[in-house]
């Protein structure tokens, strides 16, 4: 009985989760869709064409978003993994204070700090550049990767490393051959989340990029403020793709550690 109710509940939740995607997909391929028709009366590929246009704005913006996102993912993992190792793998004094400091940019909106550094960025010639945008994207992503890696390292006991050292491996060999292979799935998930956070950034990009660094969220925002749902929806679907792909990959990696309920912290609704 409880099982039946549970499945009915899952159906309701699935419908509610899917609901906002329904008009997006319909509009993206709609030619004519007047009120009060439930479905478009004509279909068209105008939206697809606008997205695929060779040398067009959408392709350029997608490329910018991809490049910045990948650079952010790599840099965040590079900075967050050792931090996670220190926070999760060892006990030391003032650890609580450092965790607070690392978590702060996740909890305190990075809007204030970004406006704060803007003047300095202008003076250093970093404003209006993709590199400047890359730098401010690190503010929300480095804490994320550090926290994800902390939980990964906290679950490890260090016994395998000890065995390797006993058998004569040096610290570097131990790290490369024992520690690294075991934390790679965590690193992949952390990198994916860093990429997604960067991919979804609007306000940090517009503040530092000043409209010169055009990423997908810029185009989606101006389309959404306008009056053409076909273009808006086509852009939105392109914008959704990495999130959906990442979800598939992340779920694959998280399957092994499903017992801890997917560690809710990983998915904080901050991916925006």
């Amino acid at each position, binding site marked *: 009985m409880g099982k039946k109710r549970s499945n009915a509940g899952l159906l309701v939740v699935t419908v509610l989760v899917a609901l906002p995607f329904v008009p997006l997909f319909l509009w993206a391929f709609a030619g004519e869709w007047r009120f009060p028709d439930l479905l478009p009366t004509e279909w068209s590929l105008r939206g697809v064409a606008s997205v695929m246009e060779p040398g067009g704005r959408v392709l350029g913006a997608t490329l910018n978003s991809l490049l910045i996102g990948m650079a952010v993912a790599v840099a965040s993992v590079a900075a967050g993994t050792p931090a996670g190792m220190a926070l999760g793998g060892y006990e030391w004094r003032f650890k609580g204070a450092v965790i607070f400091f690392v978590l702060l940019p996740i909890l305190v909106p990075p809007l204030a700090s970004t406006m704060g*550094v803007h003047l300095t960025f202008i003076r250093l010639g970093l404003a209006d550049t993709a590199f400047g945008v890359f730098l401010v994207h690190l503010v929300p992503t480095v804490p994320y990767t550090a926290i994800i890696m902390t939980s990964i390292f906290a679950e490890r006991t260090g016994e395998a490393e000890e065995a390797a050292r006993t058998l004569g491996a040096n610290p570097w060999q131990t790290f490369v051959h024992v520690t690294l292979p075991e934390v790679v799935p965590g690193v992949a998930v952390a990198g994916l989340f860093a990429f997604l956070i960067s991919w979804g950034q609007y306000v940090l990009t517009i503040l530092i990029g000043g409209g010169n660094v055009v990423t997908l969220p810029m185009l989606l925002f101006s389309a959404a403020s306008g009056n053409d749902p076909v273009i808006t929806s086509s852009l939105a679907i392109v914008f959704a793709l990495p999130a959906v792909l990442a979800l598939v990959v992340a779920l694959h990696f998280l399957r092994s550690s499903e017992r801890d309920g997917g560690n809710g912290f990983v998915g904080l609704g901050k991916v925006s």
Partner: protein
Amino acid sequence: MGGRLKIALLLAPALVVIGILFAGGLVSAVVQSVGYMPAIGQTRVSLDAYREVLSGGDFLDSFLLTVYIAGVSTAVSTVLAVLAAMTLRRSSGRLSAVVFQLPITIPHLLAAVGIALVVSQTGLGARLAAALGLIGQPREFPALLYDRYSAGIILTYVWKEVPFVALVVLAALRGVAGELEDVARTLGANTWQRFWYVVFPVISPGIVAASLLVFAFTFGAFEVPYLLGRTYPTILPVMAYNEYKDVELSARPVAMAINVLISLFTAIFAALYLRLARDLGRG
């Protein structure tokens, strides 16, 4: 020995990034909020910006709207998440994981665009209402975007945050709460007694921690209200952004003062959350 040095070296890259770009940026925001901007020839330090912000009615309106949106979004999300988790806990773990992870992974901006196309006066909801004969014209459908109740904003946040809170609750339910509940059932407790005296005390710290995070986030978030909100009053981050975009450089200290106040407020929630999370870890 080298232990301390090793820890310091491991932490260095992350702390440099956070220290310079985040903490440095905040310090710079505080400095600019008191009017110290040598770059434009302003070196007199004063609290004028704070006085201006706090004495004007605009700030209070924005503050109340921000608290309202964050508070209602958090409360609705939390209640729905507990209900969803209680209902779904016996269903397939993998399936519900996929369904819940999707809104968590989707950017807020995208969620706002999708929700807008559902709840606008010519949206999917209005079309369904028309098909059912409930309305004849688009304007007969309730205005849920750019409205005084910020319905579209709250709906977007609820859609995004319910799954997040629900996953936290599900994790707690699938752990010790389930076993304790079985014991209570064997001892003859009814459904309500089992929930109130056994399950709820176990899951409540997780619920509080998750809702604190949601509140802090919705309090400081920018995109959704910027897209779906009215032009006045706006939430505090949008107000700060509008002041910042003002061509008059004299508006800068005001923008920074609002930013500093937002940061102070959310930092209090951060401290509360971490305290709770630590107690949770110990318990």
